[in-house]
């Protein structure tokens, strides 16, 4: 898993790529989410467009980001969910929990 962050229109964008399968590398991800809250970023987009593969532990990462941000009064959107991730979201019925958008810009606009 690789992780990059950037800012656009007051929104923090977390770009994930590679294989998302939880485990030790999730620490960096959790830290990033905590930093977003610490820096008072109310809006976060997770860009999943470059994710090659994700398992249920990867879904666990998204879920914990969602609950952590929500508890801190922040809003999370997903952008560019791949077919594979979309099917995982459908099976776990998290598609009703996560607000997914086909583009990062679309996700950013949906905050307004």
């Amino acid at each position, binding site marked *: 898993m690789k992780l990059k962050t950037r800012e656009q229109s007051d929104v923090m964008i977390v770009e994930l790529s590679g294989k998302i399968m*939880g485990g030790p590398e999730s620490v960096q991800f959790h830290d990033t989410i905590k930093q977003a809250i610490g820096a008072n970023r109310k809006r976060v987009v997770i860009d999943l467009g470059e994710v090659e593969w994700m398992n249920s532990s990867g879904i666990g990462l998204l879920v*914990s980001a969602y609950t952590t941000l929500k508890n801190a009064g922040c809003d999370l959107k997903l952008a560019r969910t791949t077919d594979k991730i979309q099917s995982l979201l459908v*099976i776990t019925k998290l598609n009703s929990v996560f607000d997914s958008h086909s583009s990062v810009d679309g996700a950013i606009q949906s905050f307004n």
Partner: protein
Amino acid sequence: MADSARTPDLTDASSVSPFESKLEELARLSVELLRQLRSNAIDPKSAAEYKALAAEVASVELAAELQQELERERDENAILQTVSLKLSSAGELRDVLRVILESLAQVVEFDAAGIFVYDREFGQIEVDMLSGYEAAQRKKLYEKFQESVRSGEGIVATVVLTGRPIYVPDVRTDSRYVEVRPSTHSEIAVPIAVRGELIGAFNLESDHVDNFSERDRKTLQTFASHAGVALERARADRMRQHTRRIEEELALARRIHSTFLPKTMPLFQPYDLGGMNFPSSEVGGDYFDFVPITESDLGVIMSDVAGHGVAAALLMANFRACILIESRAHYAIRTILSRVNEFLVETNPPDSFVTAFYGVLNRERHILTYSNAGHNPPLLLRKGETPRQLSAGGPILGVFPGVEYEEAHVQLQAGDLLVFYTDGVTEAENSGGEQFGVERLSDAAKRYATLPAYEIARRISHDVHEFQAQDENQDDLTLSIVKYE
């Protein structure tokens, strides 16, 4: 043995050695020469005599120094041999380090000493062996280290960070020095390295200015390399113990997990039941069960905990206990899942969850009532119809409080086949990165539909294993079959 005439004996004042009488003669001559020099009348005879005598005295001194050096080397070698012997008998690290310090004290004079290990990951220096520091000074030492590693000050911290030895003949003139013992006047510290990797430092302090010779520094470095071997061995021992403990924990978790799974399937005619679980190399988080509730009702559970290892096994234990208790309480299925969800939300770590299918099969009316909490939808295979996926329900368990679950019914017919599975089946990948998928699963189930339930599960599992690329990232594989005969 050295010739006693050429060895200065400075301990016995009562007897005057030939060397001492020569020194006395030399002193007398030098006074005489000085007097002649002042009166500008140097007697060449006295000068020649003085030169000869001085040369003789110098050679005796040199020989004596060489002799001392040789003796010290012999002592050192003997001591190092003792240290090596101690090292080779696998003792406690602290005992070995103590022997190293005590042995060093026999060849180098110092007033305080310490062996320090640097934890690069946490940027901390750990003190492994100290000598010559009072209790209050030890406390100060611990505090100073954390500061000095951060600020890059302090002799030991500098050695640990740079890997280069430092000798400070007078601590009052070195800005890097951080005081711990007020009486210290000189300090020396050398790095401890193992196979080129810097792991710590060995330092000596003295109450005298410029106490440590070049030779002392070399000796200290030799002892430091022995300390390195001891520390490395202790670290390897700790790693081994740690690995063993983890393996024991995993073995225990595996045993716990295997006790969750049904050993034999209940008899529930006219339904034939079969199921199996192949745990991954780690401890798995899959759980399936057939739970007789009443004479006519059978609970069917298929579930998966996100993650592996001991944490997943414990969460699975939690889920299992909870659903078994709730399923016997005769609540509606959607209520059972809501209650299990609430319980898991309270007890779960935030990034773990359970996906579960729970259904109750009534063998008089042949109705399966179910709710699916984010689990891979089981397949209902009926002759001449496309496979149906049983997905009605709600989201995963253990994350969102207050979630409501939908409940659905399905009327079964003779010849129907229900296939329950976890993602280890459909997400098994071949070497081309292609997944086994739902279609291959339903095709395989249809192919084996005439066989007994257990045999269907076994054949499908076999197909999945054949399909799957041989890598280590294999998930748990769990399948169960309900066949209406």
